[in-house]
């Protein structure tokens, strides 16, 4: 069970959070093609390595925030940190 760094509450137990999926690019404007829309909607990144994703502090302060999590080791870092 992870601990996650809530920007408001600090390090908290994973059970207080809900995962809200990988960070998506900005919502496309209405003039994109259908296939561009479908791509935005249904094709998330799924790397072996760091994935940038959203978490919701649902049982805590209610903040949605972004972290980078390694999909193999569960190492967590902040999105601005270098994951190279």
């Amino acid at each position, binding site marked *: *069970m992870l601990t996650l760094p809530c920007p408001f509450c600090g390090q908290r137990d994973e059970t207080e959070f809900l995962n809200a999926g990988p960070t998506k690019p900005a919502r496309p404007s*209405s003039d994109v093609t259908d296939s561009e829309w479908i791509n935005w909607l249904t094709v998330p990144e799924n790397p072996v390595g760091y994935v940038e994703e*959203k978490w*919701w502090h649902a049982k805590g302060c209610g903040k949605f925030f972004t972290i980078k999590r390694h999909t193999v080791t569960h190492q967590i870092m902040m999105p601005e940190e270098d994951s190279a």
Partner: protein
Amino acid sequence: MTHNPFRQKAGGRIDRNSCVEFEFNGKRYSGYKGDTLASALLANGVFLNARSFKYHRPRGIMGAGVEEPSCLVELLGADAGGNYAATTVQLRPGLKAKSVNCWPSPSFDLMSINQLFARLLPAGFYYKTFMWPNWHLFEPSIRRAAGLAAAPDDQIPYQHFETRYWHGDVLVVGAGSSGLLAALIASRSGARVMIVDDHPLPGGCLRSSQTKIDERPAIEWAEAVCAELDANPEVTRLQDATAWGYREDNLLMVTERSPAETHVFQRGWKARAGRVILATGAIERNLVFANNDLPGVMLASAVQTYYHEFGVIPGRHAMIFTNNSSAYSLAHDLQAGGTMIAGIVDSRPSNAIGAEKDGLDIPLYAANQLQAAHGGKHLRAVTIRAADGSTKRVDCDLLAVSGGWNPAVHLFSQARGTLAYDDALASFVPDKAMQRLACVGAAAGKMNLVSAIADTLSTVTACLSEDNFKPSAFSLPSFTALPDYHLQPLWHVDGMKPGDKAFVDIQNDVTLDDIGLAMREGFDTVEHVKRYTTAGMGIDQGKTGNVNVIGNIAKASNKKPDEIGTTTFRSPFTPVDFGSIAGQRNGATVLPFRHTPITQWNKDRGAVMYEAGARWQRPGYFPINGGNMQDAINAEAEAVRYGVGVYDGSPLGKFDISGRDAAAFIDLLYTNDFADLEIGMGRYGIMLSDDGMILDDGVTFKLAENHYLMSTSTGFADVVFRHMEYLLQIECESWQVWITPVTSQWCNATICGPKARDVLEALGVSIDIGNDAFPFMAMREAIVAGTPARICRVSFTGEVSFEINVWPRHAKAMWRRIMEIGAPFGILPVGSETSHVLRVEKGFLSLGHEVDETADPYDLGMDWIMSRTKTHAIGRRSVDIRRSSGKPRRELVGLMPKTGGELVAEGAPITPNGDRVASEGFVSACVWSVVNKQIIALGLLTDGRARIGETIIIRDRERVIDAVVTKPCFYDPKGERLRG
């Protein structure tokens, strides 16, 4: 009177004044307070007490602690539970236990017929044999035959389990010499410390060692350390507690079996520390020779433990077989205790055997191997094989075996740490740690006590400094030196004959031949061998067998063991009661539940309670005297249609939404237009998820400019809240919108039916509630029966309805008043069964029935709710794309099934011609309609709207039912009644 034929006259740390009676496999025995089940059985001479997993071979106790691979028991009665190693079960009065893997008893086991077919049951046998027609056909009977303990039935007496958290600086696993020292240093430096040990008493191997510390018996030093730790309020010391799982971020899962709080049966700890010190010691391994599983063959360290701890020597005539120096200390003990020793067989050459042999007066077979053990249900003799191949048979009834020591790296490995092969130890030791932890003592491969202690001091001191503690100077106690540990690997003995069973993994019944077979068939990596043979799986998790498996793979493939590597050690380290994981989440609280202020009134009235989504308990229906469920539902439904009813609508989700951009946000969420909604009015809306499926529906009222009260369905309130917060925080960051959940700030009693207005007037209401002043879909603030209330005119029943919202503190009084004032009007409370009937008659949607995350609004005939002008609403784009394909869709229809009185099951498929082929739709709801006096249903049917009037066929299990397709509304299609 205790008759323990294998108990020494004196010695051990049992309480010889407290006799404890217990039962094993239906027979009564006695032992002493301080015994384990295993030590008591051995003291009583019960040596055959298990059958093996696959072949049902006779087995006895081999170990003395968590490493025990064969004697697993099921506890009965108050302790009911399965798969405990007998060596870890504390003897207590009235204990009842039985062996897990034999029937009817270990000495007469019917399944032992498997032994005769052993040649036919090699590794992979099940995979190869039970392929046709499919494995699932055979699985149940195979599982029964090769099973572990059955789960206890639900009739066992209630045991209270508890789970709790612990947060601290240093968590030490193991209370042997290194663990105690680590805890002592950490606690003296001011850290908050937890130390966990799986034995009932601390000390680890010090308990059976002749070492002296500061010239006193080692155990006295351990006791003094514990006394100091116990006096420190920042230290939590747990004995008889196993750390069985190592999770991310230094979280350890610990099960405590003897909590001080008497109302707690077991406690699960989720303990998280800044630093973990693993002082888990080492586990002795077996040697691989023929019949090395026979009762009477035991690990040398286990025999030593039984002698020191319990005053038990489980044999009259002992033999020792070793490849290392550690087993000699047992010989010294047995010699001192007066047990006859037939000899020590040591596979090492005599020049490799050092000071450990000094002072022993017994035959030493150096450079010899023990080729085989002999006996039926118990050891009677062994065959010793000399270097030249000559053999000699020697009688004995106890064989103590030591194949060397494996550092207990299980937790380290669970923490993703990597392992390295150590040639001197012929075993794997911790290499690179992946979490903030350190291994000390034997767990780190430091087998020499004196140097291990010095290493522990420096390692723990360095960790504490790194963690910003200031460890004070610490002077080590003085230890008397012991002979150095020395070993020469022996992966299996020579000279075994075909058909000899030599086990590498006793618990999973994996033999040396099985390893060879797996490799010949191409399963030659360690992970494949594990899966093909099951070695190292299950409860054992490679405690005694794993390194022998790896060593033998290496030997067979002419590689070094470090080229073979290890498999992953999994949690739990030892079997764990589910109760200690679930904790207090059992019994009344096994599932969360939510009440309204009216819940108790409903129960008192005799309502049958249902879970109505989002954990709310609601009345299903109110039984009436002399009637069945349908009678009760009919009475409630008729009250609403022809008189008046009232239901508790409190669980409906409610959100207060305001802020500069609130109107724009409402417009983004709903597919229909809200821009022209007037203050004080509400509108029904549908919101979609991004993939264009219906997320929720409900009515939103406009309270003021940019201030709304949104209601959602009961079950999806949390989902809608998350959806809204996601959009606001991630996509609309610059918008000013505040959302406050107010579901529980308001309770509502919904009065509905043609006489609803009369009841409300009779209650006393401060405003004009005539249809002109207070139209359908309006909301008004008013005083009702002397209480401030918000009244909403919405209808989920198709009748005139007044939703009277009050603060919950007033809800019970309001409800009672409504029932009292309503009585002359024939008011009845209405349960969710009746609400269901009423909404099906009207064709109103229900999430989870018609709306199942495949339907969009067009499918439900709600084209009107898809705004023509507003294309940016969430989900709109996806709906348009999907519909542009022109593929046929399932559409909402009404159905008139011809069933002759029985309801059709919800979910029943509609198939072309009623054939057993792919369905063309399904029944989403089916009820008896009180207004139509017949069974009606709703369903989704491919191209349904074009098929009205057609007869389709429903398959309900074995029934085949004709139904006429209709419009999805059976009552007041123009909605005149609800607007009246």
